[in-house]
């Protein structure tokens, strides 16, 4: 069999019969080419979507969650219903102890985020209202902050010394500073207090409600400036990578209920948002897309290969006489069968390779078109090489199987009958 494959004459025979009917060959090739093209573009696109989601989430710890206080809905332990809950700074250590799956807990406090006014910030003749956050340096472990060159985020010394420093947003910089000015080291006036700018953060989409004009100051400074005591608006938390985020969320709430003396069944006392769960859902969606693309791809390839079988069947009919002549001249049934089979596999393979090239080309174009659009969750659409090889293998396998039908057909007609046909 291998001898036949590597024989130059075999290929000469095959090229001869392929060239004989160029239109037939072209139509056949297009069928499979289309199949593999669809498969490549689809699975590349779904991989691009996958990568895109991954990129959108990369600023935020994948299994992060947020907890805030609400109002109780069940009377408990002598408290009436509808009691306003308030998270406190010491909840941080308490949660770290009670929920060992938690890696980081960052207390946060803010103005001008959930209703209410932000702080009015002035500089020279310019001013604006901006949301202000009181934060700890640990926040960056949960939601990474991209700081432009030359700047930094809040550090522990800022916290310890209650420094009046701030990290401003891209938009804040544009609105308060001239283009030529370097804001780092300069001062802005926030609620009549001067703050030194230590960094400018790049806006990242994944954080939820944050924007490109947010100002971050040390938690302790916030507390002193706005007289908020040990109050915490919400906790941003990250669980260890292997933790089950849904279970962690449950544990956190249970622990908080004990500490704040809330009825264990009270679901309203604390609110939470589980980014990990959302992320898992998105992941599920994109893996669903992957499966879909594989299924659709295989189905289209199958359709294409069946097309090849079909056209070869017609071609065998057309060539009945030629095959009869060949057999009268001494071609054994095995040789005739082999020729048809190799033709089938060869056509499939050529079509497949062309389809892969075309698909890669289209993916490259899509990539160029989407590369500067960072809000679209679509990045680097690729198809793993093993998928491509798998698809090629599948096509060769199917091409062989489907080629068997016309090949068998070609030898089932006796040469004498083949020759009689005029």
């Amino acid at each position, binding site marked *: 069999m291998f001898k036949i494959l590597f024989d130059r004459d075999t290929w000469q025979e095959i090229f001869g019969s392929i060239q*004989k009917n160029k239109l037939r060959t072209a139509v056949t090739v297009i069928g499979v080419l289309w199949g593999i093209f669809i498969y490549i573009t689809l699975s590349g696109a779904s991989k691009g979507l996958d990568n895109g989601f991954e990129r959108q989430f990369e600023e935020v710890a994948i299994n992060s969650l947020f907890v805030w206080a609400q109002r109780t809905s069940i009377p408990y332990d002598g408290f009436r219903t509808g009691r306003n809950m308030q998270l406190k700074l010491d909840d941080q250590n308490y949660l770290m102890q009670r929920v060992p799956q938690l890696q980081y807990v960052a207390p946060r406090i803010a103005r001008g985020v959930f209703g209410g006014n932000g702080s009015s910030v002035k500089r020279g003749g310019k001013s604006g209202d901006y949301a202000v956050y009181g934060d700890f340096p640990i926040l960056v472990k949960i939601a990474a902050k991209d700081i432009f060159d030359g700047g930094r985020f809040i550090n522990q010394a800022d916290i310890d010394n209650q420094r009046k420093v701030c990290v401003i947003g891209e938009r804040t910089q544009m609105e308060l500073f001239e283009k030529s000015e370097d804001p780092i080291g300069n001062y802005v006036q926030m609620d009549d207090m001067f703050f030194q700018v230590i960094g400018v953060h790049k806006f990242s989409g994944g954080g939820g409600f944050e924007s490109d004009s947010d100002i971050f100051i040390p938690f302790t400074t916030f507390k002193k400036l706005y007289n908020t005591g040990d109050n915490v608006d919400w906790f941003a938390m990250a669980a260890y990578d292997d933790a089950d985020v849904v279970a962690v969320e449950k544990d956190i709430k249970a622990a908080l209920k004990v500490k704040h003396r809330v009825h264990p069944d009270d679901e309203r006392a604390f609110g939470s948002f589980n980014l990990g769960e959302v992320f898992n859902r998105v992941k599920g969606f994109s893996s669903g897309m992957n499966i879909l693309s594989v299924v659709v791809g295989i189905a289209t390839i199958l359709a294409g290969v069946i097309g090849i079988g079909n056209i070869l069947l017609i071609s065998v009919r057309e060539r009945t006489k030629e095959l009869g002549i060949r057999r009268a001249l001494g071609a054994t049934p095995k*040789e005739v069968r082999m020729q048809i089979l190799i033709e089938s596999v060869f056509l499939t393979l050529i079509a497949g390779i062309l389809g892969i090239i075309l698909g890669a080309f289209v993916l490259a174009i899509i990539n160029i078109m989407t590369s500067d659009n960072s809000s679209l969750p679509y990045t680097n659409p690729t198809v793993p090489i093993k998928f491509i090889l798998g698809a090629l293998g599948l096509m060769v396998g199917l091409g062989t199987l489907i080629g068997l039908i016309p090949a068998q057909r070609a030898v089932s007609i006796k040469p004498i009958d083949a020759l009689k046909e005029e």
Partner: protein
Amino acid sequence: MGRSTLHVLKGISFDVQQGEMVAIMGSSGSGKSTLLNILGMLDVADSGSYTLDKEPIKNLDETKAAIYRNKFLGFVFQSFNLISYKTALENVMLPLYYQKIGRKDRQERAQKFLEKVGLGPWATHHPNELSGGQKQRVAIARALVSEPKVLLADEPTGALDSKTSYELMDVLQTINDTGITLLIVTHEKDIANMCKRIVHLRDGVIVEDKKIKQVRANSYVK
């Protein structure tokens, strides 16, 4: 291609010696083509025996028949049966391909046989660029290239005018002169007279089998 059975040949027995040139004659339906097909192993007889070059031909499956055809037999058909997308030379090379003979060797031998039938300069032409007589000569070259023991021709001149027919018969006679056995199915009296023996069939039986004095075709060819 019907499935209904029809007994075409009803008991035929004859021997052909090496170097003979036999015309098989008969009206249409007399079984002459069937006889030729059985001899050519394209068809199988329901009963009886067939010995070719001391070798009994029996229990033929397709593969065996193909090998025998390739080794022992050459075919010439009324409708030439050349492969249209191959050149004259490639057509002649084809039987050698199935003998697994090397390409260069094949080419040389095919060229030699094309020259033998007077078509050396036409080697690279496709069948549709050749006249009927030329096509048939390509077919003869193709039948001869594998150096068969027997050449079977089914109405080789059926599609040709008489002048071309005679030219072709001249070629066939020359071949016969080299010792190759020829069996020619024909219904034309003048063609049959150019052979050395005439076998008459009617309704599946031999009604006449006689040796004749061969008429040389080149006496007609001017």
